[in-house]
């Protein structure tokens, strides 16, 4: 069992109204040091695969097919060595 931590983020050129609103909120709270906020998605996916390469290939395919929309989003992921299933 492998654990993939997948990050889906907007491409740098794509406007991020949610990030801008969060930026405004942080400024309102007094965090004047904040220069930029970009919001994305984080997914944890447990994959049953014979080895890390196979797991990586599967997660890559999942990202391309469903998890990220290539028109506006990019993805990256980290794969953890065999981890016990939760519960």
């Amino acid at each position, binding site marked *: 069992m492998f654990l993939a931590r997948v990050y889906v983020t907007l491409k740098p*050129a794509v*406007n991020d*109204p*949610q990030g801008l*609103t969060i930026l405004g909120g942080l400024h309102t709270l007094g965090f004047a040091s904040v220069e930029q906020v970009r919001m994305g998605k984080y997914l944890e996916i447990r994959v049953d695969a014979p080895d890390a390469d196979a797991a990586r290939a599967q997660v890559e395919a999942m990202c391309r097919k*469903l*998890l990220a929309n290539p*028109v*506006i989003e990019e993805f990256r992921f980290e794969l953890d060595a065999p981890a016990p299933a939760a519960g």
Partner: protein
Amino acid sequence: MKFGVVVFPGTWSDMDCYHVLDTVLHQEVRYLWHQETDLGGADCVILPGGFSYGDYLRAGALARFAPIMGAVADFAARGGLVLGICNGFQILCESGLLPGVLMRNRHLQFRCQWVHLRAERATTPFSGAMQPGQVLRMPISHGEGNYYADAETLAELERRGQVVFRYCAADGRITEGANPNGALRNIAGIVNREGNVLGMMPHPERCCEPLVGGADGLLVFQSLVQSSLKALGAV
């Protein structure tokens, strides 16, 4: 003309579409459940508005894997007429049947209001009953209608005349103030390159009788009926 109205879990405009086609326009219409794989001989398939699969992950992202969507894609590839309204537009973009994507509204608000649209093209099967440049009044009801495509795709859409509807002021001018969601170039509706698949954010099915505040939406459905009669050589 035979219409098929696709119903996903979470679709909410299916009954409005059915009502307009059946009761107002006296056309043959049936619902198509998302698990079906056959379009039942429909001449035109409508993907109505709503929140298919709860809009989870991204609006329209999961609906595109529903069994019915394989049949819709084959139908579109053969030149069949497909109309996606609101969530239907989002599904068509996620499916790759239309270019671009509908992002979160720029101001992050859900907007339920009347807007004005300018019909940029009256030569599609979805707008043939309109005059070029005609201003229509229709409601919108969405949180993610902010049309985005990269510069190259946008230029291509404009060059090929694929932008069918733009948000405009009451006098037809394309202004920033008339744009309810931040859509690039005030885009409210586009067709594919072949002209047989249209996606639009406004809801024509909700304005087809004076009783509900306006009837401009009828022009979209009348255009479809007209185009099918033309195809049959009846007019």
